[in-house]
């Protein structure tokens, strides 16, 4: 039987082939996810999610600190982490590989997400007392059976501040702000972790924490969902967790409570990628208890809460966030025994980006401030201006150059002596996503 294809006019056949080729090119464009991090990280796209998607990213980094020693001795802010044994270092800040997907294609209401960290950072390297060891950063299952109440169980990023919750596409600077690094990125001292005073270079191995930092994650259960109302997208999350970060054990019987709400106005509902043009307002709250590592009969409340706004409409991006904390205020890597306290802290940041039109260049500027031990004789202030430039080779590969000018001071004379000479820091990083 003669094939009907041959009965089509040649011009028509050409047009069909042309349409097919164009379609193929369009399909090769990267899939767009919503900039809603809870949905992006916790769910897969129904009907099209693969059973297994291998993915990850690598971030080789170089940093140079220009701070001066005080009386020939150094404190952690003047050294490059996580090892804190030098003022300039090459490092693999993050090297993550994982799988995610919907294992049963006929009923893809069950999603999973697994990610491991092989980079050298506060989650994998305990410095002096610990040693490098890769960690599982995420291992979660999401059940999407109840409309309006998706359930995510396991280890994953808890709902919270934008800087901690954001995925890789939302990290426009190499280092976190001081408020995020000190007040939110929780460290867990061990009873064996001892106070280490300022050290002379090059032997200042001052990272006192033998347990992994949280990485803004927890083991628990989260109920969440997002709702479209016209051009608005509203999202909520309620979570209960151990309050122990990526450690797979619980420190006490109390559970941490996490609450989150965001409302985003989408300028273009069809563009829901990480660069989706939108204005998002959000607020969050966390509360839990921590056990004193040095006296396990004592427990301490730990509270954190904040609010912020993001704006993105190329060529401009603006983010502002402010947050408060009470209890378990970080006193520095060299002071693990003073982590257990009932002090107050607060801080925030405002940052902006300009995507230079018709180029692959992006300019960034951020100001952040943080004050800890508020209203105490040891009140300490941290403020930083960070100027950055990014060059996007492709949407998945970029190079980032940051320079941070830091101004630290303390009402406590001994601390102020150590902090007043904290100076600039240069950082260069390549990000490659696969």
């Amino acid at each position: 039987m003669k094939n009907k294809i041959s009965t089509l006019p040649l011009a028509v056949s050409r047009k069909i082939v042309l349409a097919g080729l164009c379609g193929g090119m369009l399909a090769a464009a990267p899939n767009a996810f919503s900039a809603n991090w809870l949905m992006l990280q916790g769910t897969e796209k129904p009907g099209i999610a693969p059973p297994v998607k291998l993915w990850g990213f690598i971030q080789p980094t170089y940093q140079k600190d220009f701070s001066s020693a005080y009386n020939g001795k150094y404190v952690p802010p003047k050294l490059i982490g996580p090892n804190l044994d030098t003022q300039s270092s090459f490092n693999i800040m993050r090297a993550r590989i994982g799988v995610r997907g919907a294992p049963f294609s006929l009923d893809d209401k069950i999603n999973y997400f697994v990610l491991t960290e092989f980079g050298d950072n506060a989650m994998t390297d305990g410095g002096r007392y610990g040693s490098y060891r890769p960690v599982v950063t995420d291992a979660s299952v999401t059940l999407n059976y109840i409309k309006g109440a998706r359930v995510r169980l396991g280890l994953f990023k808890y709902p919270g501040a934008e800087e901690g919750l954001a995925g890789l596409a939302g990290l426009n600077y190499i280092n976190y702000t001081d408020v995020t690094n000190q007040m939110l990125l929780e460290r867990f001292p061990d009873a064996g972790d001892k106070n280490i005073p300022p050290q002379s270079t090059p032997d200042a191995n001052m990272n006192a924490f033998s347990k992994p930092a949280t990485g803004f994650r927890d083991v628990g259960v989260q109920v969440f969902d997002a709702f479209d109302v016209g051009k608005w997208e509203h999202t909520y999350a309620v979570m209960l967790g151990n309050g122990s970060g990526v450690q797979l054990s619980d420190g006490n019987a109390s559970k941490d409570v996490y609450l989150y709400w965001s409302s985003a106005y989408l300028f273009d509902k069809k563009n829901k990628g990480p660069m989706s043009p939108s204005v998002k307002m959000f607020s969050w709250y966390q509360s839990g208890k921590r056990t004193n590592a040095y006296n396990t009969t004592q427990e301490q409340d730990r509270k954190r809460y904040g609010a912020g706004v993001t704006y993105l409409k190329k060529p401009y991006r603006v983010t502002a966030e402010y947050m408060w904390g009470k209890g378990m205020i970080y006193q520095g890597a060299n002071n693990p025994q003073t982590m257990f306290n009932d002090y107050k802290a607060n801080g925030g940041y405002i940052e902006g980006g300009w995507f230079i039109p018709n180029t692959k260049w992006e300019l960034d500027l951020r100001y952040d401030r943080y004050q800890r031990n508020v209203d105490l004789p040891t009140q300490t202030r941290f403020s930083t201006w960070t100027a950055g430039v990014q060059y996007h080779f492709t949407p998945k590969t970029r190079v980032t150059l940051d320079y941070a000018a830091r101004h630290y001071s303390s009402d406590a004379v001994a601390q102020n002596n150590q902090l007043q000479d904290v100076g600039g820091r240069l950082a260069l990083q390549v990000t490659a996503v696969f």
Partner: protein
Amino acid sequence: MIRFRQKIVITALLLGLMGTAPSVMANPAAEPVSQAVQDKPFAVARVALQISDGSGEKQQLVLNVANNLIKFYGADKVDVEVVAFGAGLRLLFKDNALGDQIQSLASEGVRFSACGNTIDAMAKKLGHPPELAPEARIVPAGIVRLVELNKAGFFVSRP
């Protein structure tokens, strides 16, 4: 009176439970090919697109091709039917993330046919037939539909 209230509460609970269970609404059968072609009497090209792969990339590709055909010829000048069978039936699942694009193409006259044999096979695995997008029309067998479309002058393509 108390019994009456109890009945109302139990009925409400049952209705609530039913709300969380998949509600299976059968989609209508597709028109025979001879009848379907009359929807586009001025078509200068007729194209049947096969989707038998469940991957998101292939699903997006098929929709892009359909969209490009519409853009190139104009909605009245091209007759496009997407035939989904095997794993490709995922494209026509009710909650598919590409549902908006399917709806938009259907409004331009693109037809979406779902293979009845595949639905039966999936129903055995799931315990119930899969819920399909409202744009889907059931055909007895996807491959037979493609043969019939080809016999009627359709260019059959598997992007």
